[in-house]
Each structure stands twice: as structure tokens, then as C-alpha cells.
């Protein structure tokens, strides 16, 4: 294969990949975004609830399970924000319109939540239940911060 051909093929491939990926992004409809973020929150809820049960002595503490839950919460916690784009304020959602009128504040609160969930995953790995309980509480407060102001009841 000549050099010119390699350049041509590479350029074409890049163009195709870009076109495809742009098309994919453009095809995320508002209702898809709502679906994704709700799915992320549902899984966060499941994993955080499991940690809560351990933190509140409602089920026995299991280090491996706690790590799995906390890592899931940390990873999933980064997903919803990008799905609060324009047009996703209407539909099957409890998200309040204030999210979009106060997007900077909302982003800030999401960022704080991500900081705490990252820390939660680290604490879970350390395996100290008392520290996990404390960090669980701090993380819960950052969930509540948005639920109080940006989530319809």
C-alpha cells in the first residue's frame, strides 16, 4: 500500500467515523436522555441503598459488596449530568425547570456529589466500616442537596 493510499484510507475512515459518531450523538432524543439519566439514578439508588443498609446495620457488612456498590455509585454518578441538555426538561421526568435556569449551580452540586462518591469508593476499599458509615452520610447529603431544590415530589 502506497503512502498516498494509506493517507486516503485513514482520512476517509476518520471522516466516516466522525460522521457516524456525530449522527449518533445527534440522534439522542430528549426522551432518550431522560431515559438514560433515570436509569443511571435508578442504579445509583440500588447501589447506594445497599450501602445504606450496611451503614445502618440493616444487613451485614460485606467489604467486597461495599466496594462493588461504592464503585458503581462513583461511576454512575458521572453519567446523568450530560443528559440534562436542552429540551430534556419536558417529558416523563421529575426534574424541575430550575435545573435549566440555574444550570451552573446544578453543575456545581453534581460536581460535589461526584467528589463525595469518589471518596466513598476509596473509603470502601480501605475497609473501615466506621469510616464508610461517616462517608455514606456525607455522600447522602450531596444527593439531598439536589433532591431538595431540583426534584419534584
Amino acid at each position: 500500500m502506497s503512502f498516498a493510499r494509506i493517507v486516503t484510507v485513514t482520512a476517509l475512515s476518520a471522516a466516516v467515523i466522525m460522521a457516524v459518531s456525530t449522527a449518533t450523538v445527534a440522534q439522542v432524543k430528549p426522551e432518550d436522555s431522560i431515559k438514560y439519566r433515570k436509569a443511571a439514578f435508578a442504579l445509583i439508588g440500588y447501589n447506594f441503598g445497599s450501602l445504606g443498609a450496611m451503614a445502618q446495620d440493616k444487613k451485614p457488612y460485606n467489604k467486597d459488596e461495599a466496594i462493588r456498590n461504592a464503585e458503581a455509585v462513583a461511576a454512575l454518578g458521572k453519567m446523568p449530568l450530560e443528559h440534562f441538555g436542552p429540551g430534556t426538561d419536558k417529558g416523563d421526568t421529575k426534574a424541575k425547570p430550575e435545573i435549566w435556569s440555574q444550570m451552573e449551580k446544578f453543575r456545581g452540586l453534581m460536581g460535589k456529589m461526584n467528589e463525595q462518591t469518589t471518596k466513598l469508593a476509596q473509603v470502601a476499599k480501605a475497609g473501615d466500616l466506621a469510616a464508610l458509615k461517616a462517608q455514606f452520610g456525607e455522600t447522602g447529603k450531596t444527593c439531598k442537596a439536589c433532591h431538595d431544590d431540583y426534584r419534584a415530589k
Partner: protein
Amino acid sequence: MPPTPEAASAKSLRVWDLPTRVFHWVLLTLVVFCVVSAKIGGNWTPWHMRAGYAVLALVAFRIVWGFIGSDTARFTHFVRSPFAVFRYFRDSWRGKAGAEVGHNPAGAYSVLLLLTVLFVQAVTGLFIDDEIANQGPLYAKVSSDVVSWATRIHHWNEKVLYGVVGIHVVAILVYVFGKRETLVKPMLTGDKPWPTAVPHPALRFAPTWLALVILGICAAAVYGLVVIYPKA
């Protein structure tokens, strides 16, 4: 029930029995704690819930005490018609309202309102989900529709509670600055100043042990509801 006269000097009159007074101040403490712990969230939320169970037991006690307790605590003794409330406001405005024994006609409705609002708050709390990590003890016993309905009522009723407590506090201030009378002291000591010229009304007071028995039953019932029944 035999009358249990409580000692009072000629210049003062025993109006509130010990159980009613203790109920009042413990309830106040618990409600303040519930509001603060709800605002903080995090690991305070389980304590918010426990304090809520205590509120439920206390409100249940007060309802029973309102039927079989001392005269001034009984609903039949202090709840009067809305016309009586109107007359009370009119006479107070003209400075002609006489000395009150127990709740005045307006205060009576305030008591009913406060008990109702707190009862609704405590009961809805049993079913709700904060969608973070805490569910009320009866969450799993009801459908998701009931959960979301109870959750909405709990948050909406919180605002109603602030309103009702606000009215209660404003009324106390009106008494202090308008009528030159403190309602707080009688609720602490049980006695209120009484004009020597006016004969003491005959009031029956129920014994404290009866209040303890009722409270014990109410607490046991709430314990059964929030601890035993959910596991059944």
C-alpha cells in the same frame, strides 16, 4: 374517675396537669429536632425517623388524654363552637374577655390543628421514600402510588406545620404584648395567676400514673407498628 384536687394558692390556679406539660415540651423538642435533622440529612435521617415515631406515640397519647385525662386537657372541655371563637376575639378586642381556664376558644382549634398536622406528618412518614437510602418502616407494605402520595403529603404538610406553629407562636406574643399575660409560664409550672375575687372553678385532674399507662400503651403500639409489623 375520682377528682384529684391539686394544691394551688388563692392567687393562682392549677390549670395544666404534669402529663400535659411534659407532653408539650417534649413534643416541642422532638419537632424542632425533626425539622433540623431533616434539613441536615445524611446520617441524621435515621434519627429524624426515630424522633418521628416518638412524635406519633406522643400525639396518640394526647388524643387519648383528650378523652380520659384531666378536665383542662379534655376536648369536650375546651373545644367550643366557631361562634364562641368569634365572641372570644370580639371580647378580647374590646378588652372584656374574662379569665380563661385552660385553652381559650381560639387556642382550642389551634390544639386540634397542631395535633392533626403532626399526626398526618408522622403517619405519612411511615410510608415514604427519600429516594436516597431511607424508606419509612411501612414502605414495603404499600404500593408505589401510596409511597409517592405519602411523600408528597409529607413535604407539603411540612409547610403547613410551619404555618400552624407560626400562628401558635404569634398568639403567644399577642398575649404577652396585647393582654400582658404569659402563656409560657403556666405551661411550665402548671399554675396561672387568678384574681382572688373570682372563685376557683372546680377542675378535676387525672392521676399521673394513668398518663404513664396510656403513654406506655401508645409507645408499645407504635413500636409494634414500626419495628415488629414490618418484619412480619
